[in-house]
């Protein structure tokens, strides 16, 4: 479903294509606990494996971002595929208040600016 790894001060999460609604909920809880345990300042949510991000997926990414921000961490979503981005716009799905970056490298850079984390 998803893999969470520690990368310096950051948490790095890859979301699988077959991630279900329930898995998303579990991921939120795991990420929340890990962020608190490691006092993480930044979390990268890599969605490059996801072939579909629907309204629920968008809402979960928003929820994760908001919950992590409450814990003092900033989240950046990276790797949205071109076709997925197009579908999101066509279907009027929104990723409001969610930081996005092109890829992992850019996400690290962005988090560096957002959190001044040592990576």
């Amino acid at each position, binding site marked *: 479903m998803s893999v969470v790894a520690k990368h310096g001060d950051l948490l790095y999460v890859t979301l699988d294509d*077959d*991630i*279900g*609604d*329930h898995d998303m909920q579990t991921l939120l809880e795991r990420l929340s606990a890990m962020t608190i345990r490691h006092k993480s300042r930044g979390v990268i949510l890599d969605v490059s494996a996801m*072939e*579909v*991000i*629907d*309204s*629920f997926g968008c809402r979960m990414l928003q929820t994760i971002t908001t919950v992590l921000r409450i814990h003092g961490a900033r989240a950046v979503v990276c790797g949205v*595929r*071109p*076709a*997925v981005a*197009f*579908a*999101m716009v*066509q*279907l*009027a*799905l*929104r990723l409001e208040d969610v930081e996005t970056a092109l890829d992992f490298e850019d996400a690290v850079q962005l988090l560096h600016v957002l959190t001044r984390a040592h990576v």
Partner: protein
Amino acid sequence: MSDAGPRVRVELTSDHEIVHARKAGREIAQQLGFSTTDQVLIATAISELARNIVLHAGGGAIEISTVSSRPGIAIVATDTGPGIRDVELALQDGYSTGIGLGLGLPGARRISDEFMIETRVGHGTSIFFRKYVP
């Protein structure tokens, strides 16, 4: 409607079948020759239709097949849920951002070539979606 193409029926009882349904849809869309962009659009629309059923109707099924008259995908989402009281409202664009009934329906209609809703309050809803290979 006779057809020789693939036909997949996914019974929707939990969120895991939503993933099955959209994967099956994407596969058929790919076989039909839809572009990658359209494949993702179709898969996302299926995801929205399937989720509506799981969340609001408590169960149902989604059937994906090919149109016989010309290259295209046909999707029928059926449930025996409460029905949609106000179809016009459910299809309003702003409505899709809410959590209520009709989530994703406006988007699914917008990307379709043919879209029809049959609903009876207290009996259920069937949504017919078609998209043709451009």
